[in-house]
């Protein structure tokens, strides 16, 4: 495994290896609960908490967990934190808990969390594991926020419940319904791919120009 600096560990998950937009992990919650900004943020924060907690514990216990049963051990640790998160949300913000429904419990099977434990936290010291968890968690939160904002602004004409466009705006209701989730993520991915292609083409032209200049 290549050695990385702490900054790389932190920044990697946020953009270049964004769990949702680049690695396509954790899609179920990213599509299911992003119909409003508030729900997206609640989901992002709950997942962030679970990821941070499990990375901490897995990294602390990494010399104690036998290799053969590691996956089951990780799942048990994750499930424990999810139970804590679920009960916490139910106690503090019951209406959010109701809106997210079964999807809080489903954080357990979010492949992004298990993936970080298996690929990173189980092999690194606590500090690095926490940095990685923060980066990945923030990346997930950003992706969810982007989707939630897009869907709420277009589908309801509001942001965090505040109307934006005045009474004459006809909301595009389909965006807050299930098909809107697929369409929004599809549009985001296509936009990203277009952006990357353009940047790659720009870099190629610049390199060609530089080579020409060098030759002349």
């Amino acid at each position, binding site marked *: 495994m290549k050695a990385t600096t702490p900054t790389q560990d932190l920044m990697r998950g946020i953009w270049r290896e964004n769990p949702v937009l680049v690695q396509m992990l954790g899609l179920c919650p990213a599509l299911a609960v992003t119909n409003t900004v508030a729900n997206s943020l609640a989901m992002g924060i709950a997942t962030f908490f679970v990821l941070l907690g499990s990375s901490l514990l897995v990294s602390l216990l990494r010399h104690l967990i036998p290799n053969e049963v590691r996956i089951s051990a990780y799942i*048990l640790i994750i499930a424990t934190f999810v139970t804590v998160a679920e009960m916490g949300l139910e106690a503090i913000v019951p209406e959010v808990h109701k809106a997210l429904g*079964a999807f809080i*419990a489903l954080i357990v*099977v*979010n492949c992004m969390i298990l993936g970080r434990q298996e690929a990173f936290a189980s092999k690194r010291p606590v500090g690095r594991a926490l940095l990685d968890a923060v980066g990945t968690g923030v990346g997930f939160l950003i992706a969810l926020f982007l989707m939630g904002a897009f869907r709420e602004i277009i589908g309801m004409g509001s942001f965090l419940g505040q109307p934006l466009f005045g009474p004459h705006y006809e909301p595009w209701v389909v965006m807050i319904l*299930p*098909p809107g989730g697929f369409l929004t*993520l599809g549009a985001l991915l296509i936009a990203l791919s277009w952006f990357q292609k353009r940047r790659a083409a720009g870099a190629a032209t610049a390199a060609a120009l530089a080579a020409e200049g060098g030759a002349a």
Partner: protein
Amino acid sequence: MGDLFWILLSAMIVNNFTLAMFLGLCPFFGVSARVETALRMGLANIFVLVLTALCSWALNTYVLVYAPYLRLISFIVVIASLVQIVEMAIKKLSPTLFRQLGIFLPLITTNCAILGLAIFQTNRGYGLAEGLFFAVGAGLGLTLALVLMASIRETTELSDVPDVTRGTGLVLIIAGTLSLAFMGFAGLLSAA
């Protein structure tokens, strides 16, 4: 009996697990490139879903009444170990079936559709018969979505789509369109 039929139909079409509730998206995007693989994945899913319905009913009835906070942990542990045992049993009893379903079984365990089924079944207070019909309906719905997706993807593979949309972006847009089509079934239940 009528209720059971509507539970099945609702889980299969109106509240399709994949297209309306976003459960089981990993296999939906992962193994939907070929119709045949998609069909096998769907069948393996039906099988595991029915097992899960049985397990979670047993857990809910006999164990979790005493310790409700263990719900999530016990569901996932029991389902994962059960699938493992079934996998070993199939390998021993019917090598042909194992070759057809084998590689998909472990994949399915970490699929949110399975845990989602157990949780929805609990939240809605389904009994044994209702749970089984719900599981079969959900499984058929997943299979339907997978096969539809795979047939569309086989066709688009050769068509001339813009370069930037190749890959997951296109698949998501197709999924959105399918989901839009499935929304048309929403009137089915209220009309009945």
